[in-house]
């Protein structure tokens, strides 16, 4: 059965791009969230195998959503996927349980490598 992924990004373009990359490589995109609050709600209702998480988003940013998802499910697999690749952002995300950190723009192979590795574990 295909592994189930929740995409979180406020940019429609990025949600479409990630969905294409993931579905073309055999993953199922079960939901798309446009901000952190939607991601937290969809995580709890959809129980995906993995979440991709942008950081800068309206309503609730990705770091706060990461904290809330990991508080509700300490086993949650969250991959940050953001244009903000500063050291402090990476450190904060990893300290809060992010499993990988992909800086935009990315090559499709980088996304598949990160997701496959985590879902094989």
């Amino acid at each position, binding site marked *: 059965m295909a592994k189930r992924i929740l995409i979180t990004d406020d940019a*429609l373009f990025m949600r479409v791009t990630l969905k294409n990359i993931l579905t073309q490589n055999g993953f199922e995109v079960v939901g798309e969230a446009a901000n952190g609050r939607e991601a937290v709600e969809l995580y709890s209702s959809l129980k995906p195998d993995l979440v991709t998480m942008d950081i800068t988003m309206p309503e609730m940013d990705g770091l706060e959503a990461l904290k809330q998802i990991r508080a509700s499910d300490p086993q949650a697999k969250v991959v940050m996927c953001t*244009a903000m690749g500063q050291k402090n952002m990476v450190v904060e995300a990893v300290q809060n349980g992010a499993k990988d950190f992909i800086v935009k*723009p990315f090559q499709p192979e980088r996304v598949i490598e990160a997701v496959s590795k985590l879902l094989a574990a």
Partner: protein
Amino acid sequence: MRAEFVNPFVQATCDVVRLTMGTEPKLGSLSARPKIFTATEFNVSCGIVGDLVGGVLYGLSSETAYSVAKQMLGGMEEIPDELSTSALAELGNMISGNTSSKLQALGFVCDITPPSIIRGTNISISTIDIPALVIPIELGAHGSLEITVSLKERAAVKAA
């Protein structure tokens, strides 16, 4: 505006353009403007806050905007306006985000605000009294991207 703030924008733009458009970008001649205003039909605006304050505007002609969006969407025909606008906003977001990482390496910690789209020419963007620098980048067959940057150190803004 200090010259050392220019390079991070140029480097980040070149990195992002190569990856998203497969084009080798070329830097044009820099020029100055008394403030930020739109000189092209399609513009992406991002604010910069932190050790540096100000903003950046990414300007494209309608033709270049369409060509770049199409390339970013893998050559898709019949692109819905919402999707092409989102692609170009994300282009501005990626360049700004990568720039802020490079500025941090120089010792300036900054955050960027989510991008907003401004359509139309000669619209003044900010009342911040910071002279702007225009960085033109040639995007091969797509046309050109005009980056207008207006930045100051926070300490300098406070003292003014």
